[in-house]
């Protein structure tokens, strides 16, 4: 437990000191989302209808930005080998790093959603539902991303490969995330979508660390 906290703490410290990844993801998110009004024209009704979808898709892409470095730097400087010798099983190493990734990119993205939602004329009744769907969905993105990052470790042009690998797997999260937020617009209950999202998170929490740890073992051989 001690070691787990130490690893999360170290990753947060590195992220804040190097200052890049979280901030970059949020800026990309805000900028990419604000391109849509220019692209599809400033029609408030149209924007309001697609706002949740835009926010989800751009959040998904923004979460990908820093993923290829999740294990890369540790692998290059020999830290990963030391982590393999630590008291922490590799599965928990992965979980700690995914948690740190979510805290550094997922949480700021959720917060940045509020101004972006206003920008896109999102119905303010829908905003709490959208935030809830992101709160359930973004940890899944970090976990699935962790598997991709572990599998592409050491591959040339790993970042592109990682996106190709991870994006299809994230489609179900996108579908239910947007559907959960949009249900309010149609005056429907969104409980089912949120339960499905929560179920996906409950499945990803134990499964993704196992898959990613297997990938890391392969990279260390």
């Amino acid at each position, binding site marked *: 437990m*001690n*070691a787990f*906290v*130490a*690893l999360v*703490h*170290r990753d947060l*410290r*590195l992220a804040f*000191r*190097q200052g890049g990844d979280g901030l970059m993801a949020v800026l990309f998110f805000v900028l990419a989302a604000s391109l849509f009004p220019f692209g599809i024209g400033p029609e408030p009704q149209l924007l309001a209808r697609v706002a949740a979808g835009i926010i989800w898709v751009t959040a998904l892409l923004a979460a990908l930005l820093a993923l290829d470095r999740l294990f890369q730097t540790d692998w*290059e*400087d*020999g*830290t990963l*080998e*030391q*982590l*393999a*010798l*630590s*008291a*922490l*099983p590799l599965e928990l190493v992965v979980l700690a790093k995914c948690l740190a990734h979510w805290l550094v990119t997922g949480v700021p993205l959720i917060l940045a959603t509020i101004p972006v939602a206003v920008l896109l004329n999102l119905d303010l009744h829908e905003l709490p539902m959208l935030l809830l769907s992101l709160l359930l969905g973004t940890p899944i993105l970090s976990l699935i991303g962790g598997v991709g990052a572990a599998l592409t470790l050491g591959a040339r042009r790993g970042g592109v490969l990682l996106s190709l690998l991870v994006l299809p797997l994230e489609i179900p999260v996108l579908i239910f995330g947007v559907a959960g937020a949009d249900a309010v617009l149609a005056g429907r209950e969104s409980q089912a979508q949120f339960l499905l999202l929560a179920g996906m998170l409950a499945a990803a929490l134990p499964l993704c660390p196992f898959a990613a740890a297997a990938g890391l073992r392969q990279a*260390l*051989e």
Partner: protein
Amino acid sequence: MALFSAAGLAASRGGRRLFQGVGFALEPGDALVLVGPNGSGKSSLLRLLAGFGRPTAGIIAWDDGDIRADLDEYRGRIQILGHADAVKPALRVGELLAFWIALAGAAATPGRVDAALAAVGLERLRETPCRFLSAGQKRRLALARLAAYDRPLWLLDEPSVGLDTASIASLAGMIAEHRERGGMVVLSTHQDLGLADARTLSLADYPAVETGDQDWWAA
């Protein structure tokens, strides 16, 4: 039987068998020095001993049990020092060491961090960000990890690279202390570290052969 031993070890890289038939047996307090020209397989052998990669042939045993039977448990007994120092430029010297101690499952008390830094002469740089360290100081910080927590087997790949004479002497001192406590050391080196009654394994005696062997991952 010996506590840590290897028998009939062979490793292949790209269709070349780097060495074969390598074996040794170590008891608590023993030291084994690997020598041999560049490319003779010293680093590959040390990686195999750390459980990274599978030997083409042979067995590595701890207390007569194959280490690959329970790698996680075995890795809890070793410390490695590779060519990469695992030093993060953005962290302070003391923070990095405290992190490693916590990761090893020990309590990272300030006293423990200071003692380990003092062992390699870095105690005055505790609050210095690692990006300001010289190559030799980074190496010493990596060595401080050895002093920071106790593991019975040290696997050191050219630990003296980049060190000044005083640091090499203190490295030799650390190794001697470790052996007195009953620890074991396997290290590769190109220079004489002056270790008392250490055994030497020359990989030049096990010349590489072209075999067309496939690497294990291609097999």
